[in-house]
């Protein structure tokens, strides 16, 4: 048996829902004419039909999600590229921070003060580790 398409599953869900409503309306209109057994049978039938409608709706959603997979993969891939661009732009910020710490390091060496040099080295290492 060939598999359903999402449109076919939706059409079935809609059909079962309409038939279920029709059974319910019939049962209500002829309530006084029907025997309790007939009423119960129609009630049960109505419930089964509406459950079938929900089943086909769930099937339609599942098929839709399956069909969407290549689309989702493509959007995920593009999102990855956009995030990569954000990372690149943030890396520029990091490069400037590293350059700033290296300038400080140069000045510290020029000063000849061991304490200043040690502190500047620590800052530079921190900037490089980001």
């Amino acid at each position, binding site marked *: 048996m060939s598999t359903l398409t999402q449109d076919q599953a939706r059409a079935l869900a809609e059909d079962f829902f309409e038939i279920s409503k029709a059974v*319910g309306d019939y049962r209500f209109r002829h309530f006084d004419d029907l025997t309790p057994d007939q009423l119960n049978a129609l009630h049960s039938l109505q419930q089964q039909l509406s459950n079938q409608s929900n089943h086909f709706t769930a099937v339609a959603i599942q098929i839709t999600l399956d069909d969407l997979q290549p689309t989702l993969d493509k*959007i995920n891939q593009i999102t990855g590229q*956009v995030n990569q661009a954000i990372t690149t732009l943030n890396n520029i910020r990091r490069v400037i*921070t590293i350059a700033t710490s290296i300038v400080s390091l140069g000045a510290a060496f020029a000063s000849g003060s061991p304490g200043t040099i040690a502190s500047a080295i620590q800052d530079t290492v921190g900037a490089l580790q980001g």
Partner: protein
Amino acid sequence: MRKGESVFSFLWNFRQISILVAAAVLLVTVGCVTPEAVRQFTAVATDAAQQFPPLVRDLAASCIRKQLADRSVDEIADASGEAKNACKEFSDLEPSLLGALDVLINYLNALSQLASDQVVSYDTQIDGFAAKVQAAGKFGDAPVNAIKGLAKFLADAAASGYQRKKLGSAIKAADSDVAILTKALGTIVGDDYIRVLGVEQESVLERFRQAIQADKTKNPAVHLLLQDRWRANLESQENRRRAARDLQQILVKIRDGHHQLAAQVDHWSAIELRQTLSPYSSSIRQLVRDFQVAF
């Protein structure tokens, strides 16, 4: 010549060349997609898309309410486990459905972040850099300000150009897929969910009919109470349906707004782009407010 002055002189010549380079960069990027308009639209669209999860979860919840409404009116028992089992198909769908929604939210959010001013602003870092240069080289204010101005100018031009190029290429590349995804989600929300609500409502209606018909005394007080409960139920259902239609419209606006961006990404001015996207953003905001009445 003092050390600071020679550096300044070098930088001054470098600045003239750099201005030409930067001007060329700006010419290349002029008329490209305007980040602020994109940021505003995608930020609104992201917020709107984040409203979906309660509705997605209500698919299974509606099915459970239907199962409970199908139970006999004189039953006093905890049937919730049985009802949940009968709706497993819907609860099993939730993670995939929320996952598909996340793909859209993550994409819009990434675009919004890339379009943000902050991502291309290096002012604080450059100020810090200039201060260090000043301290290290004992430069005066003039050369340091020149370094700062030049660095900011170049960084802005380069970063903005890169930002616009990446925004433009992403929006164009994703446009047809965004259309497919929003259409599919719109069908699930606007057709499938509304049908599931309809099925639930039929079961609830049947329950009220049974209760009315079971009352052989035709007691008006009982009928009045049942009628009030039925009306309250109807109103709650109508709110949910309206919310679903709002969400379907939001998806249409996201799709159309995104398509306008993609179509005009290479040649619209900032004002035109904002004018084009503004109605989409406003409609989405209004629809989200309406949607929040039910969820």
